[in-house]
């Protein structure tokens, strides 16, 4: 019966991140792999959801207030004028916003440029829509964008470019210069940009997220996708949005309606409370995550990872295995689970471009620090116990490859 599957479905494989989570669960490991918090969501937002359920906001719903607040935020943060009545589409999470965007703009054979390393889902959304993902690698160790490489990635079939900033898995925030390079290329080549800005409020060291759409002449060609999930620690509520020029927003909305019809009603209502949070909420969010970042970053540096790049945003960091370590990223993570009882994500799943000469795709491990203080402390202790007394470095790095 496998022949009954659509051709795209046949090429899909289960998520490697999810597979590791099952192993971790079986080993009772501390999960620094999955990108969601294990601390409670903010009380005022949960209360708003409870109140919404009790007040009978339980039927199909479109809460225009969300669009109004989002438009306000875009003006405040980026100086952009977005029409809340026509340019914003509420979706079931950024996931659905992105999927609907691809279905709205991609025709069979259209190429979409992606910057590696990149979140696994973009690739499949593009292919589901009949598009062709084209990868160009950001340059380690600081994951910089090379403008020549970018130029070479465009062809006459390029329809769009996807930008995720702040970035999963590296935690990089695209610099103003890089944004300008991308914008110039998009303008010159008449290409759309689709951004994933879910970590927009999680930035460190006084860096601020700049939206690509806020650059000159970009608003008319950019689709922004984002959500409540990461900012408000409610990844399970499925409330997100797409912001786009009116015609495109309308297409996205029509598709969203056929895919899911409506985002969960009570959580749309609670979103109003979330989006109304005072500036102090966002300051605290940043400070909290910054100190968690520092904790894990320092730990990993201390135990011998090559930490040349400190993340400026998101709640991930991409740690490089030292040269002395001959294990691949997957082998290393397996050992980390079994011996240290801590799980992280092998970086190879984020690389799609042809393997480079020095095989960077197998040298990185992604750690998530969106976890409670207790969890991070416990993880630090477990990792700390596995160091070689002389060097202070992880013994795991000395392991020899089985192959």
């Amino acid at each position, binding site marked *: 019966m496998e022949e009954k*599957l659509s051709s795209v479905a*046949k090429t899909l494989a289960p*998520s490697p991140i999810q597979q590791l989570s099952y192993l971790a669960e079986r080993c009772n490991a501390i999960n620094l792999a999955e990108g969601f918090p294990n601390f409670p969501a903010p009380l005022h937002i949960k209360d708003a959801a409870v109140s919404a359920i009790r007040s009978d906001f339980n039927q199909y719903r479109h809460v225009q207030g969300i669009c109004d607040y989002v438009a306000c935020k875009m003006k405040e943060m980026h100086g952009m004028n977005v029409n809340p009545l026509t340019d914003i589409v509420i979706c079931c999470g950024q996931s659905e916003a992105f999927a609907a965007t691809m279905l709205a703009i991609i025709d069979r054979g259209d190429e979409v440029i992606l910057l590696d390393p990149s979140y696994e889902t973009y690739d499949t959304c593009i292919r589901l829509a009949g598009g062709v993902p084209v990868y160009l690698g950001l340059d380690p160790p600081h994951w910089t964008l090379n403008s020549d490489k970018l130029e070479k990635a465009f062809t006459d079939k390029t329809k769009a470019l996807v930008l995720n900033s702040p970035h999963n898995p590296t935690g990089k925030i695209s610099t103003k210069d890089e944004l300008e390079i991308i914008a110039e290329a998009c303008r010159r080549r008449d290409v759309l940009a689709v951004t994933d800005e879910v970590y927009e409020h999680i930035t460190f060291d006084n860096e601020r997220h700049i939206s690509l759409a806020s650059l000159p002449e970009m608003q008319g060609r950019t689709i922004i996708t984002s959500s409540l999930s990461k900012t408000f620690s409610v990844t399970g*509520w499925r409330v997100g949005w797409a912001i786009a020029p009116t015609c495109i927003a309308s*297409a996205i909305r029509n598709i969203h309606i056929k895919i*899911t019809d409506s985002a969960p*009603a009570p959580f749309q209502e609670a979103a109003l409370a979330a989006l109304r949070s005072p500036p102090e909420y966002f300051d605290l969010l940043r400070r909290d995550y910054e100190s968690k970042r520092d904790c894990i970053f320092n730990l990993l540096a201390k135990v011998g990872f090559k930490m040349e790049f400190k993340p400026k945003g998101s709640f991930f960091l991409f740690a490089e295995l030292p040269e002395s370590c001959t294990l691949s990223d997957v082998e290393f993570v397996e050992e980390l689970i079994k011996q240290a009882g801590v799980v992280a994500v092998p970086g190879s799943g984020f690389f799609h471009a042809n393997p480079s000469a020095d095989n960077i795709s197998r040298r990185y491990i992604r750690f998530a620090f969106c976890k409670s203080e207790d969890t991070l402390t416990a993880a630090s202790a477990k990792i700390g116990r596995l160091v070689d007394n002389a060097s202070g470095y992880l013994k795991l790095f000395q392991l020899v490859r089985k192959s």
Partner: protein
Amino acid sequence: MLVQFHTLEPFNFFQSLSKRPILKLGNCAEINSICRRRISSVMASSSVSKAAAPTQDCAAQPLQVAKRLEKFKTTIFTQMSSLAIKHNAINLGQGFPNFDGPEFVKEAAIQAIRDGKNQYARGYGVPDLNKAVSERFKKDTGLIVDPEKEVTVTSGCTEAIAATILGLINPGDEVILFAPFYDSYEATLSMAGANIKCVTLRPPNFAIPVDELKSIVTKNTRAVLMNSPHNPTGKMFTREELDAIASLCNENDVLVFSDEVYDKLAFEMDHISIASIPGMYDRTVTMNSLGKTFSLTGWKIGWAIAPPHLTWGLRQAHSYLTFATSTPMQYAAATALRAPDSYYEELRRDYMSKKNILVEGLKAVGFTVHPSSGTYFVVVDHTPFGLENDIAFCEYLIKEVGVVAIPTSVFYLDPEEGKNLVRFTFCKDEGTLRSAVERMKEKLEKKK
């Protein structure tokens, strides 16, 4: 008839709390031409963009892709909705209740939120919900399914349909629909590039024309998409009809996608899941949701039950469409599905008495009311009132009488087939139903 463009109001939900003005497509002229050229060519062929003339780029795209959005027409209902507000009409058009869901289910959701169940759920469903779904399915059909391998939780039945179609249908695959049909079927099939073949169900009892079906199902048919109990007619497929469909599918190796969201609103006969017919489970995707049974349509909890080889495909599509489904609501759904039989009996009794009020009222007013065995819809023939078609009748009904119904022509591939019929819903409290009937008795006049 003027067709106005509104970016926000799709036909199947009307937000009574928002009073936004209709927006004209003129706004689009302000968007620079980059935007129009760069929307996928599909936009160019949709009715939405007719006011902004498509540029040359769009014209030369292959038909298959262009079809993706061509069926996304929401303008009629937008117009109805805003007319309804303007005239303060009683809304018997929208297919969702104006009363709320049961306390015990709402409290379960609240408890889940307080217990911290607010992060990503497992992609294919919270284990307890998968289990509850399979338990309920066994009670309803006698079939035993593996909750881990054969149940997938989705954002409503709408997403179950989208994931099933996108996961299992290739461009060019032939799929059979029964008209009139819920509007997302045609649109989603177009998105997948399917080749749609339609069999029309006709009044008075909307029976399946088995001979016609036999002539259409061939070895080239990939799937049949069916809905029973049926929106908009309320028809329930009989055992004989299901057997006929089953034998055609078995002979020609055809899949069945079965939308059964109204299965608990079965009044005149028992609901039969086609998956329970011999030979059918292995080729059927059975789809359902929480919304209609528990009056919580906005929670978006649905599911698809299918054998592992079909589940795999729809799960892949689902994981990229929405990744995961709302977590606290899933916990509440598991509680809901374990409701005792008395809940379902009371649900049916309630709806039957509402149906009675509406049907008796519609007959007294002068409509020809077609028999509806299930769902909370009933279709009627409006021609005794002398309006030229269903849309004209619905406009008249809103403006002159102050009641909203849905014109059924949008549920057909060929709108002409639906022009004599309109759909009323009775998922409203009894007071609302009685008021609507009163208004119609007072103001609707039969034309000679």
